[in-house]
Structure formats: C-alpha cells, structure tokens
C-alpha cells in the first residue's frame, strides 16, 4: 500500500494532488456501413456475440431507475453460463437489484461505475463482488473508454428512438429520457455496439450515429417510463433548505463571478433546485444574462433558459419531462456527450468553463475533502458522478448541506472516503454557518465586512455539530478492499473496505 497526498493508503497509482491534465484526442475508428442491422430477438443476438468468460460490457444510466436494458442483458448472458463479466455501467440504481444474484453466481465479478446505489451498492460493501470495483468520475469514464484504457467488448445501449441503421435519439419515443450523453462515448469506442430500442423510427435529433452501431434490436420495452424521468422535480419545501439556498446565492454574488456571461451548474437535490429558482430571480432583478448552465437538467434550468437568463443549456442527462421536452424543441438546449461534459483530457470540456458549481455532500472534513461515495456508516451509497469533475473545473465550488440531519453531522473530522479532494472545494454553506476555505482570505474578509452571512471556520462548524450530536463511534471495517475511489486523472484517492458486521442487538 502506498500513501497518497491525502494521507490515504492505496494499493497503486497514488493521487498526487490536483494538477492540470494534458489534453489528448482519440480517433473514432468505428464506421459500420452495413444496411441490415435490424434484429428482433435479443437472445439470438447475444448468443451470436460469442461472449467469452471475462468479457467487458457496458451500459448507460439514462433510463435511470426505470432501466430494463441492463437487467435483461445480464439475464441472457447468465443463461449462456458466461462468467467473470466486467460490468462498465455509467451508474447503477435500485432497479438493478437482480445484479446482486449475478454477483453471487459469478456471472459478474467486477463493476466499474461512476455511481452505485441501492442493493448492488450494499452487496459490494458486503464483499459479494469477487474483484475490487472501481468508482470513478463521469469524466474519467469518458477518458478511460476513449483512450482504450478499458476496452469494451460490447456496449449495450438502450435508445428511445433508433432508425433501423442505428441513428438514435433520446428525446423521442415512448421511453424518452432526453440526452444520451453517457452512452455516446461507449457507442464511439466499444468494439461492438448493440442498440436496444422499443421505437424504431427515423429520429429528428441524432445523438447516437449509425456508423457507430453494429446491431439494432427491436425490443418490446427498454424501460418503465415511471422510473426513467420523474414527471416533475420540485423545490424543497423545507424552510431550512430554502435558507441555505438564499445564503448560497448571497455567497455566489459576493464571489464576483456572477456577471454577464457567467456559467453555472447545480444538482437536482432539493436545495440545489431552490438555488436555481433563486438564481432565476436574481438574473431577473439584475438584468444579467449567463452564458450556459450544464450538467443534469431539470425544469428549473429550463425555466432559466426560457426566460433568457442563460443563453444555452449543455445537457448531459435529463432528470424530468420538462427537460426532455425542452431538449427536443429548444435549439439552445443542447445534448452533450460525457466527454464534452467532463472528459479530463478533452480540451473543450464544459466543466473547465464553469464559473460556479454547487454540489451536495455526505461528509466534508476539516481539510475540506468531500465524500459522496459512502454513507456515515461506511456503506457504499453513491460515487463521484460528476462531483470531482465539476469541482475541479469550476472557478468556485460550493458544497450545500444541512449541518446536522437525523443526528449526523455533514462536517466530520475525516471523511470515510475521499470522493473530491480538498483542493477543489472552496466553500461549505450550511444552515448553521458558512465555511470558506482559508485560501480565500480576501473573500472571507469581504464577506465579514459587507454581509451578514454567518462566516465560520470548518472547525467551528464541526464543534457546533458535535455539541448537538455527540461524537460518533468509529466505523469498523474488514481489511478487505471492495472498491477504489478513482480521481479524474486515473489516480487513486482512497479505498473502500468491506464493512464489518456488528451486532448491536
């Protein structure tokens, strides 16, 4: 084991700090000009792939918690008695619970993903996956696949509307999910690309190009529309969350970054959405137009676009129907690929152009390292997604959270797992105070003198929280490493260990 720059021990490739990542370009070699790609029997298609033990297959998560594709494909593969599959899924949700069974029977023995929640995450934490899993960022996934650092044998891509030749769109058809940003990279670079679609038609907006696609399989359904996108996403009604959003806006104003042409990203959590609404009112009041908003998109970002408060949306995934419809109809609402969004070696990636990003956290420690990978109980519950990508790219990165909820403090002595290193974090806004990283002394002074914002140190926030909650007992782990937390340059930030089972009766 080697100590990295965060004083965490990792088996290899230690993280050495946040440094500029050299830009690279990778050619797209695929050019399938066949004209007879359309099939209607998934079982036959998978049989004919002649997958070997140890094959690497990939999936995207745009169908979110309504996804049928991954479960169906793995089931078919298991029936062929193929073992030791490496699963490269951009994210895994609750809906993918059947995978637990296939981890146990060794159909799948390694998972490489940017985010994993629900039963699969729990199974990994409990040591049910034979090999060590990798939890990377959305951006590094794009690099890893494009650079062939990981070679995907077959990409199975659920596409809401596909032409018989494979031209595909995410925003049309009965299973419309909007942007297919995470699937594009797989389609460009996998050895074999199998599109699954429940709507065969010529799409209006093409995000997956036919020359990348080898086979198009017509299936009855790629997902449950109920789970794909929520009908509406709503702002938090929690007054504490609304207060945090208002304080965050005030902080943003005082960074000096909110001026004509600024760019901004916020997540889809309740506080983040409340903030999007605050930004709306702010732009209206100050007559300032931003350049773009990016990331995962909801109706609230669409409102910002429609009111011309921002010129453009750069959309890597849609969270609700309003976003899907906007992407389909509004020419300024662009679908972008994961590589264009966050690819660390992509010179034109969006995250590097961000002024402000606002993100959540499960834990943030006195050093400003952030954890969104494991829960306070040590169990795997998520992963970077775009967290460390946007935090690294943006000029100012703000974490928003309640300081204490259900006896858990977001501020901790040391995060259980580092997802995003301290170098990329600039501020934490909580209901009980705001901590600004000490590297921003001028800003701290400015805020203290010119605003009524409750500026505190991270230590002060920690003390306030511990006073309320008491000091939590340390979590016990087995020695066994079940997953690696990988930074966007491929180095290792941390390891995730198997959780020890304890009986509290």
């Amino acid at each position: 084991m080697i100590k990295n720059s965060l004083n965490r021990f990792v088996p290899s490739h230690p993280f050495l700090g946040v440094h500029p990542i050299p830009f690279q370009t990778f050619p797209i070699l695929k050019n399938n000009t066949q004209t007879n790609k359309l099939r209607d029997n998934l079982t036959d298609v998978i049989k004919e792939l002649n997958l070997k033990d140890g094959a690497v297959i990939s999936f995207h998560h745009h169908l979110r918690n309504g996804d049928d594709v991954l479960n169906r494909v793995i089931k078919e593969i298991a029936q062929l008695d193929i073992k030791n599959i490496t699963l490269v899924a951009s994210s895994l949700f609750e809906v993918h619970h059947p995978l637990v069974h296939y981890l146990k029977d060794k159909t799948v023995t390694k998972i490489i993903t940017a985010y994993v929640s629900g039963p699969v995450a729990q199974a990994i934490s409990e040591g049910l996956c034979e090999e060590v899993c990798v939890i990377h960022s959305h951006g590094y996934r794009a690099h890893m696949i494009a650079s062939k650092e990981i070679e995907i044998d077959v990409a199975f891509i659920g596409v809401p509307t596909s032409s018989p030749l494979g031209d595909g769109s995410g925003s049309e058809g009965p299973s419309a999910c909007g942007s297919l940003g995470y699937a594009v990279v797989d389609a460009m670079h996998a050895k074999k690309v199998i599109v699954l679609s429940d709507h065969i038609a010529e799409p209006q907006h093409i995000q997956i190009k036919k020359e990348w696609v080898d086979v198009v399989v017509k299936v009855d359904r790629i997902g449950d529309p109920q789970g794909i996108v929520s009908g509406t996403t709503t702002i938090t009604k929690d007054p504490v969350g609304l207060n945090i959003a208002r304080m965050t806006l005030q902080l943003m104003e005082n960074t000096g970054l909110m001026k004509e042409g600024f760019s901004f990203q916020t997540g889809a959590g309740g506080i983040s959405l409340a903030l999007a609404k605050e930004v709306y009112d702010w732009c209206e009041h100050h007559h300032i137009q931003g350049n773009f908003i990016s990331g995962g998109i909801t109706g609230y970002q669409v409102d910002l676009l429609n009111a011309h408060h921002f010129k453009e949306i750069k959309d890597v995934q849609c969270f609700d129907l309003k976003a899907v419809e906007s992407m389909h109809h509004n020419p300024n609402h662009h679908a972008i690929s994961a590589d264009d969004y966050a690819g660390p070696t992509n010179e034109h990636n969006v995250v590097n152009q961000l002024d402000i990003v606002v993100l959540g956290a499960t834990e943030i420690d006195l050093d400003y390292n952030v954890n969104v990978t494991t829960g306070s109980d040590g169990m795997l519950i998520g992963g970077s997604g775009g967290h460390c990508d946007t935090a690294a790219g943006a000029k100012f990165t703000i974490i928003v959270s309640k300081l204490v909820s259900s006896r858990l403090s977001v501020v901790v002595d040391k995060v259980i797992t580092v997802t995003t290193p301290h170098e990329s974090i600039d501020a934490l806004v909580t209901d009980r105070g705001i901590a600004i990283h000490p590297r921003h002394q001028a800003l701290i002074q400015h805020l203290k003198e010119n605003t009524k914002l409750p500026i505190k140190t991270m230590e002060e926030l920690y003390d306030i929280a511990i006073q309320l909650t008491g000091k939590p007992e340390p979590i016990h782990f087995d020695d066994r490493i079940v997953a690696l937390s990988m930074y966007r340059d491929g180095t290792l930030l941390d390891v995730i260990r198997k959780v020890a089972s304890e009986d509290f009766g």
Partner: protein
Amino acid sequence: MNRSYLFIPASNAGMILSSMVLDADAIIFDLEDGVALNQKISARTLLQHSLDTLDFLDKTLYVRINNASSDFFLEDVICANHPKVHGVVLPKAEIKSLEACLKVLDPSKTILCLIESALGVIQLPQLCQMSSQVKGLLLGGEDLSADCGVERTQAGHEIDYARKSLVMHAKAFKLMAIDTPFVNIEDHQGLREEVKYVASMGYDAKVAINPRQVHVIHEALKVDPLKFKEAKMIVEAFEKHRTQGIGVFNLNGKMIDEPVYLKAKHLIEKEERRTP
C-alpha cells in the same frame, strides 16, 4: 424589535431543533392549539429538555401556554419560567386569565396577550394597564371569529373592528401590535398584501404559522429605500436646524416640523430593526 413571530409545535422534535436557524425574529413554542390533547404533557417534557439543551442563538423565545382554565396551565407557566424564555403568549386573554397568569408567571417574563374573544377585545383598555409585564397584543382572528359566530374570510371584515381597536390600544399604551396569522400558507401574495395593509395601520409584526411565511413577512415589512433616504435627510436637516434654534423650515419645497421629524425618525428605526 421583532418583525415575525413563528409558531413551532412543542411536540415536534425536528422543528424545535431547526427553529433557531430559521429567519423568524421570535419563536413561539406552542403548547396549546398546535398540540393534540393527548400529547400536551409529552410536548412540554420535550420543550423543557430542548430549552435546557439547545442554543437558540439570537431568537426571542415565547411559549404559548394552555388556557388558564385548563389542567395544563400551571405546569405550562412553570415551563415558561425557564431562563431562556422571554415570555408567554396568553391565549384567550381576558381580565380573569391575565390575573391567573400574573399570579404564577415569573415577574421578569413578558406577556403577549392573545386577543381572540369578544370579551378580550372589549377588555383591551384594562388588559393594557394591568401589568407592566404585558408588552404586546396579538390578534387571534380564527378563534375570535368563532367566538363571534361568524365566518372567517380572507378579506377580514369580521375582524376589522378588533384589528383596529387592538392597534390603537397598542399605540396608546406603547405595546407591540402583532397581527393574526395568515392561514393560507401557500398564498404568499395574499400574505404580502395583508402584511402591507396591517403595517400601514401601525402593526409592528405578524405571526407566522409556517416557516416559509417568515421571509415574505420580512420582505413586505421592508421600508421603500427612497422613503428611507428621504427620512434620513429630514432627520439630519431637522437636527441641524434645531441646534440653531429653528423648529420649522423648508426642505426641497416641503415644510418640515416636529411631527414630520418624528415620523421620519420612526421610519428609520423601523428599517433598522434587526435583520437575520
């Protein structure tokens, strides 16, 4: 001076825990109508422990105790005698209930009389003068209209007399005038209009029954920045003239005298009320 008084049910552990980080200037922990009958004692136990343990920062804390004729009254007052509590909100404030309260409440504690009965309205002159502990009057429109057997409407004609009578008594006896809650918690526009309306007749503050109402109340109570600037000029000019022995003068074509000066001064004080 407090602009908003937020009711928090004393039975709700989570709401008590976050009460001090909300925008409200004052918190009223409710032991009365916000708590079910079979939860009254456990709510009080929870409130006592919360008061002992939590840091309520800069919030002014009140407890709305149960009616003086109820079984809970005495213990409620004892709970409200806690050092962190500023005072009580006395429901159904009438001469009798105020007398009962004064007997057991710590003399250092403030009383806000909740005027929510016809008799309470009629007894306003006495209530205002019975004790220096009475520092404010709070209108309870729902119970008052019920007591009068009339329908409660958003327009509020049915409480019009009480609302005006209350504010006049408050002014006469230098007490705080706090307006009745606005019950439609999703209608922020309606709330905003009502706050502006009662502020125009002299109310100092408004009760909030949902934390999201507080921000609206504060925004609505903000003084127009132009008026504020003008008031500053008037005060400055008046005080300068006064040192020269001049009590009446002309400022930009407007006659300034003592009443104009006092009004301007009052407006500045209002605006400079503490903000969160």
